[in-house]
């Protein structure tokens, strides 16, 4: 048994650079917890990492079925990495269903740790295997992978048996045993997990006995690795060469919460986050509901329409109104967003994209709401559209959204996706002081002699004055009928309408003045630019690296600003013979680029309910460089 400092075993671990481990089991098996804790440990060891939790749309489908399988993948490395990994080096399969649905993602020669006790007739049948054919015995599979049957359930049952805990409680520790085993395999310390268990069960829930039970399971897992010699060798992954600083692990939805909260504080304004639960955006509502001490009010509305309307109402009354949803919810908000365009009030709308159309694939990512974000409203109703590129990037994107919404008095849509939302990566803590304050002034005096004109514009930003109820003398009415320039009175005059349509478009374009120029990375002298947006950044970076390494250097750039585009985008595009746009949709950014710049961009498009795999991207780009896809 290892004592609480990790005792090196006989053979020294083999150093490797880069590993992806996937924990897979039933939704009730605690895979997210095991994976999360392994990630935490990995972070503390100093690796770079990226994670990808993949769970079913069903809450907890019947045990042992394939559609109830929940997975958590963590990719960690001594290098800088950006994706959770295309294939896994180690699969932990807690039952046949997990084995069945995940085995194809294991790299040839990869290790599969399977709980052999679950591969009985019942378990096999539930997973849809023939009850008599145990895939662990399949010779083809054995040739392809290093399949390691582990008597996991039996050991847990036997090792942890005590008088105080029932079988159910004991068997709940299976995930922690598996964690212990993987910790042994990759030479990770157990302390962080022990501390965590003591904290959550012991301190918070007052169940130190459960904490102890789990700690015993953890050590049992480690010991099993140490003694059973089933795997043989161990590995270690050296710390990555990250920028010095304080780091934490963060998921996209967490970062979004922090970013919005920080923005409210930087603006020194209260914030109202009004939302209706929807996967995969709900966690932002949950997170925001814990931010009350920062003057954040949350409102779980009766539907998405009420949510966006409440956010607009809040903005009218002087808070920063924010609403969050996913694709189908964004569709419902279209009409109200049109009103916000007309009212010219700040509004941030978060869309955590998921696979569509319709209910689609609610837990899977897809970048397919870009055109909806651009055009999903009646009439000429331009808004600012931003997209986050990674979990931690949500923090900056949220702040940028609040900054632009208040600067230009307009709606800003922020696009994230299911993979960003739930995936995690290390985040070097930002210097909060270095974030510029968001300057907001509410007028207190008339802006034209004795008179207040609610639609008199700022010449730089195109925004109108944000006068709020409670301010004497600035009483005014806003509404969705076309308004007269300057006065804001209802006006059906044709020329005024045309001028107002232009003014609303112009103020969106005015944001270009504060959008940084595009950073082109990779080989900027290449004739090929890979241009991405949103959650594909990591995969594009890795693909570009691989292509360079393989002797095909490419340039790459990534857009946070989708509307307006950065002012220099046209120039940048013109510098390359070939522009390749990888998207997990049918080519929505490509469509915008073609229309805006008449640029014959080539798409690499994959719509498989997941983010890009680096390999398919490399292949897609290669194909695109050879001929036109």
């Amino acid at each position, binding site marked *: 048994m290892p004592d609480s400092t990790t005792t090196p075993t006989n053979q020294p671990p083999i150093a490797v650079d880069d590993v992806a481990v996937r924990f897979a089991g039933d939704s009730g098996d605690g895979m997210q917890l095991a994976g999360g804790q392994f990630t*935490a440990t990995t*972070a*503390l060891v*100093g690796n770079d990492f990226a994670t990808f939790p993949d769970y079913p749309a069903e809450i907890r489908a019947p045990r042992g079925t394939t559609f109830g399988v929940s997975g958590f993948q963590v990719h960690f490395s001594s290098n800088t990495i950006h994706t959770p990994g295309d294939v896994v080096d180690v699969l932990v399969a807690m039952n046949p269903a997990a084995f069945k649905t995940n085995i194809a993602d294991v790299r040839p020669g990869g290790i599969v740790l399977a709980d052999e006790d679950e591969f009985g007739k019942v378990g096999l049948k539930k997973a849809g295997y023939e009850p008599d054919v145990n895939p662990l015995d399949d010779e083809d599979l054995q040739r392809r992978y290093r399949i390691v049957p582990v008597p996991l359930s039996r050991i847990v049952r036997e090792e942890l048996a005590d008088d105080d805990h029932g079988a159910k409680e004991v068997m709940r520790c299976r995930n922690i045993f598996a964690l212990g085993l993987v910790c042994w395999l990759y030479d990770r310390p157990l302390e962080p997990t022990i501390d965590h268990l003591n904290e959550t069960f012991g301190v918070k829930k007052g169940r130190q006995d459960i904490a102890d039970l789990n700690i015993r399971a953890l050590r049992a897992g480690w010991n099993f690795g140490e003694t059973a010699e089933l795997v043989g060798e161990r590995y270690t992954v050296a710390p990555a060469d990250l*920028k*010095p*600083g*304080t*780091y*934490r*692990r*963060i998921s996209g939805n*967490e970062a979004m919460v*922090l970013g919005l909260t*920080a923005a409210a*504080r930087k603006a020194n304004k209260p914030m*109202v986050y*009004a939302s209706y639960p929807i996967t995969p955006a709900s966690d932002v509502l949950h997170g925001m509901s814990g*931010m*009350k*001490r*920062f*003057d*954040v*009010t949350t*409102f779980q*509305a*009766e*539907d998405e*329409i*009420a949510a966006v*309307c*409440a*956010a*607009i*109402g*809040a*903005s*009218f*009354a*002087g*808070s920063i109104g924010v609403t969050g949803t996913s694709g189908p919810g964004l569709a419902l908000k279209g*009409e*109200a967003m049109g*009103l916000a365009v007309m*009212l010219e009030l700040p509004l941030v709308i978060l869309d955590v994209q998921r696979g569509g159309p319709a209910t689609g694939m609610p837990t899977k990512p897809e970048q397919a709401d870009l055109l909806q974000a651009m055009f999903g409203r009646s009439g000429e109703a331009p808004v600012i559209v931003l997209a986050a590129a990674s979990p931690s990037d949500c923090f900056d994107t949220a702040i940028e959204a609040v900054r632009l919404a208040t600067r230009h008095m307009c709606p800003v849509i922020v696009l994230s996706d299911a993979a960003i939302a739930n995936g995690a990566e290390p985040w*070097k*803590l930002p210097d*909060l002081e270095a974030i510029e304050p968001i300057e907001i002034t509410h007028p207190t005096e008339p802006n034209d002699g004795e008179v207040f004109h609610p639609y008199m514009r700022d010449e730089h930003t195109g925004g109108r004055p944000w006068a709020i*109820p*409670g301010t*004497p003398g*600035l*009483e*005014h*009415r*806003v*509404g*969705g009928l076309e308004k007269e320039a300057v006065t804001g*009175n209802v006006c059906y005059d044709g020329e005024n309408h045309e001028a107002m349509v232009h003014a609303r478009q112009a103020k969106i374009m005015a944001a270009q003045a504060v959008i940084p120029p595009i950073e082109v990375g990779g080989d900027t002298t290449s004739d090929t630019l890979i241009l991405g947006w949103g959650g594909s950044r990591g995969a594009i970076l890795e693909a570009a690296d691989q292509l360079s390494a393989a002797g095909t250097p490419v340039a790459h750039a990534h857009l946070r600003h989708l509307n307006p585009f950065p002012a220099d985008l046209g120039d940048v595009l013109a510098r390359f013979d070939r522009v390749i746009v990888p998207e997990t949709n049918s080519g929505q950014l490509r469509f915008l680029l073609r229309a805006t710049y008449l640029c014959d961009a080539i798409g690499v498009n994959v719509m498989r309910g997941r983010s890009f795999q680096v390999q398919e991207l490399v292949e897609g780009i290669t194909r695109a460089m050879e001929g036109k896809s």
Partner: protein
Amino acid sequence: MTTLKAKDYTTDQDVRWCPGCGDYAVLAAVRKALPVIGGAKENQVFVSGIGCAARFPYYMETYGMHSIHGRAPAFATGIKLANPQLDVWLVSGDGDLLSIGGNHTMHAMRRNVGIRILLLNNRIYGLTKGQYSPTSEVGKITKSTPMGSIDEPVMPLALALAAECSFVARCLDIDAKPLGAIMERAAGHAGTAFVEVLQDCNIFNHQAWFHASQKDTRPANTLQLVHGDPMIFGVDSERCIIRSQDGLGVANVADVDAADIVVHDETNRTQAFELATMRYPDFPEPLGVLYVNADRPMYEAACEDQVARAKADRPADLQALVHGPETWQVT
């Protein structure tokens, strides 16, 4: 504070309702009532949806928002969440608040958001030129129902009661004084106040309420509710409401024991429900305050309270927040 007058509430915008529209009377009554109710103009916000009635905010020299169809209660809720101190009035039509907006109306009520709703019920879609509305009577022939509508009308007061609305009242468009008095009580009420105003659409549904609103029809066909008073009506106060096994009924005062006349109790929800479901011509149209529940907590106050408690509980330390539960150093 200087005392305000009706004209202080008058904007420079020409009022654009049809001549003879009942909305004019309501507008005049509201402009008159607000100075009496008191409060600063800059703290008042008029919110509306879409419809003829929903043009209301344009004519009130306060803050105002003419929003989108059916969603005014949601906008109003957002305004109250952002600033509970504001005095928020919601004025809209029957189509707006009961058809497309029925759900938001209902949810605002059950949450008890502190907004005062004036529902201008003309039993028709005015602005879209005369389709039947959710309060139109069965058999109504309109542009969209050439053979008569087949939808049973909504009972706005009953729905409000079922949604636990904590202040439920009813008034005629032309009754400036009672409307003012009800508004005064609504303004003092902590929670959602709902006032159904029976309004005449001069163009598309003229005389819809004439059975109750005219000098000669009113005594016989309306029941003026006064808390603690027996329910008596009629030209000579000769008719009354009594209770039988089958619920409420109408009788002649002369035929019943005085003690058998139902006494209005505005704190009794079940009885209010009975009043709310009375239908003309079997019953008179009830007017006045049907129901008040002063004990329900106000939504925005509860919300504010949580924010305050959260602040008291833990400092708003952004640095600590960003730092999170677990970090590591890279050197």
